[in-house]
């Protein structure tokens, strides 16, 4: 999932969208600002996903481990918020 160069809050929105569609498969998010990186990490962590981040050239790759979105703690069912 490529969120490079997108302004807030699109990286977060796209991440949530990707996680919803991932059906338990891991998701990689590419961002290129620290703000976007921190926002994506915060939201994914709060939803109970395990997150690993690594710098990649002039971007960051955030690996979000596979998890069934609907069964992870603290998440809302699809259609209710994000």
């Amino acid at each position, binding site marked *: 999932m490529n969120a490079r160069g997108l*302004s807030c*809050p*699109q990286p977060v929105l796209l991440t949530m969208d990707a996680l919803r569609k991932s059906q338990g498969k891991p998701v990689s998010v590419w961002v290129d600002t620290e703000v976007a990186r921190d926002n994506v990490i915060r939201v994914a962590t709060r939803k109970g996903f395990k997150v690993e981040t690594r710098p990649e050239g002039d971007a960051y790759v955030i690996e979000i481990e596979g998890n069934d979105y609907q069964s992870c703690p603290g998440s809302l069912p699809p259609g209710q918020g994000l």
Partner: protein
Amino acid sequence: MGAATGALAILLQRLGNPGNMGICVACMLRDISGALGLHRAPMVQYLRPEIIGFVLGSTASSLMGREFRARGGSAPLVRFFLGFFAMVGALVFLGCPWRALLRLSAGDANAILGLLGLGAGVWVGVAFLKSGFTLGRAQRNDPRTAWMMPALMAILLVLLIASPQFGRVDGKPAGPIFASLQGPGSQHAPIVASLIAGLSVGALAQRSRFCTVGALRDIILVKDFHLLGGVIAMVVTAFVLNLLFGQFRWGFEGQPIAHTSHLWNFLGMLLAGLAFTLAGGCPGRQLVLSGEGDADASLFVLGMLVGAGFAHNMSLASSAAGTGPYGPAAVIIGLAFCIIVGYFLRRTDVGVI
């Protein structure tokens, strides 16, 4: 960060800034627009050092945090006009989101209408974002171009201190650079105090990502309350200090630099909130981003500067007496612009690599 901003705003007001306008990004950009002669409203002309400080403080902080980076190219012209209309809306209400909060903290009940409008505008903007609205990707630019906005602010600082007279009236030197002799533009804290406060707020805001619109947006969008703390801290701090200084007065009537047209206070801020949300942040945040090397945010700021010129040249801006003759029409046009932009710039393939 929020508490510091609230405290510094009250301090600046005690040192001479206008009522409930210790800090206001919209009013202060409007005063700069006047100082440069982009409008000729004699009461609101002053090269506000706070704005210069916000940008340069952010530059210093982002250099230290290794976040100073040239980037741009995400629908620049759309952002310019979003800034333009955001300013029109803010000047119909008389304040940016920061000043709306400061007005509330001093008991100005008109601010409630403005903040409700702001919330409504953010809500509409979030609806567009959820349905795929995007201004597209920014690209990395040549690192040296990141210095454009800080350099512009440094030039403004030189102009403030030297205050040259570029104009000629009957052959005699006159402004610009203008500086009001009466009215809000003539009320200001000492330059050094304004500059230091601005630098501090700019640096803190850069570190903390402080953003009033982002705070509302994240609550609506992802139930994320992390930015709201700063906003609440700002209001509470300013409120306590206003009480201490005996400046708290609750009511709609007779508030400093405010009018009581509820509908246009609401709709003016609705326009501003929608434009800020589509552009990705409140005007304070845009200034901070411009200091980090973000050319897109810089264009939004320049759009605000030009919008302020138009707002006062064409009787769009409000005053304590009420709305300007063409303010309401301009708000409607601005809302139409934002809705057209929000509707047509939607995509479904944004995140595809």
